């Protein structure tokens, strides 16, 4: 009883945070991976930040519950966080003569659900914004939304859908992680173009211009990210079976885990 009351309270809390997020989201059709410091107008910075709040809350409660249920799952959470740290620090050249880096958020999304990853992602983004002058504090909200909210949600969605359709687990993981990575950059393009619509063609034309910069570089990286996510999951499946069972990894295709 106490448990359900607590859950209801959490839901209320998340819903309350979602209201301003929705209002802002619809009132301003504003949407942006790593956008550089000072490159988004103030209003957009705040809007994106607010939009991330409900996801932080949902993630916090979901993680707290998972950890309360079983403390031992912490090891998987630490792995997911560390994976993002490693993967997002690797700048990799692409066939089109530019460099970009991956996100690494797919693993956490598949294991813990997408909302939980928003918390892990924001740690990495803060690290990069403060120490590396990569991304930024003013654009933290927008970058969090693309890398730690939109990407993971798509990754998790694709994975869950593939499993439901009976696709093999490894293939599902690959597709989820790779498409989640791509989604992050698509959302970044959209976020930039909403702030900087073209004079001719507006947001759509502008989105295409930004996509033309990000997408070709990101395609091969998305494939690498998919591969690496599969590799670490094979390792975890081999050695961390008890913990994976605790977070419901093995029954997910039947029940479908909630956010």
């Amino acid at each position: 009883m106490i448990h359900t009351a607590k859950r209801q309270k959490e839901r209320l809390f998340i819903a309350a945070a979602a209201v301003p997020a929705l209002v802002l989201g619809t009132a301003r059709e504003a949407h942006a991976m790593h956008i550089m410091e000072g490159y988004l107008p103030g209003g957009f910075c705040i809007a994106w930040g607010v939009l991330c709040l409900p996801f932080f809350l949902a993630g916090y409660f979901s993680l707290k519950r998972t950890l309360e249920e079983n403390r031992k799952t912490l090891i998987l959470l630490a792995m997911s966080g560390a994976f993002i740290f490693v993967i997002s620090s690797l700048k990799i050249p692409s066939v089109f003569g530019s460099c970009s880096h991956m996100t690494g958020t797919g693993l956490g999304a598949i294991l813990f659900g997408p909302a939980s990853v928003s918390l892990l992602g924001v740690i990495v983004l803060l690290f990069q914004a403060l120490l590396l002058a990569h991304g930024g504090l003013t654009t933290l909200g927008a970058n969090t939304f693309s890398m730690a909210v939109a990407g993971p949600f798509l990754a998790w969605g694709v994975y869950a859908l593939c499993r439901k359709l009976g696709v093999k687990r490894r293939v599902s993981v690959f597709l989820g992680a790779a498409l989640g990575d791509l989604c992050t950059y698509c959302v970044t393009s959209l976020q930039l173009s909403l702030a900087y619509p073209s004079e001719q063609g507006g947001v759509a034309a502008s989105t295409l211009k930004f996509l033309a910069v990000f997408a070709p570089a990101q395609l091969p990286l998305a494939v690498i990210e998919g591969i690496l996510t599969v590799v670490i999951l094979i390792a975890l499946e081999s050695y961390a079976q008890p913990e994976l069972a605790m977070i419901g990894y093995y029954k997910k295709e039947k029940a479908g885990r909630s956010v």
Partner: protein
Amino acid sequence: MKHKNARTVLLLLLLAVLIAALPLFLQKGASFGGTDDAGSQVVEEIQGKDYKPWFTPVLEQALGGELPGEVESLLFCVQTGIGVGVIAFLMGRLVERRKWMRRMEDAGSDKARQDREADHASD
């Protein structure tokens, strides 16, 4: 790790390295600049004028200029290092734990067999 898994992992890692390394050979002489910087160029193109960011990174403000390239790569390495450290430490524990669990199971089943045999002997 099972033999088949080990082979899959090796093949996948090899593939990842190939995808990452090939562009260097296919596009000789390309600068391989970051897409983040390319993004700012597009902003300027769309705006039709030089764009001045309205906020500079806090570290650059404190330093009064850009972070030196070598130091930036150092910090990126620190980030990778932290991540790899955590993963390696935890994986090490997990691998060792499975070894112990196996050993306990083996010991357990050995003991059960001995008990059975002892029962038979006393019959």
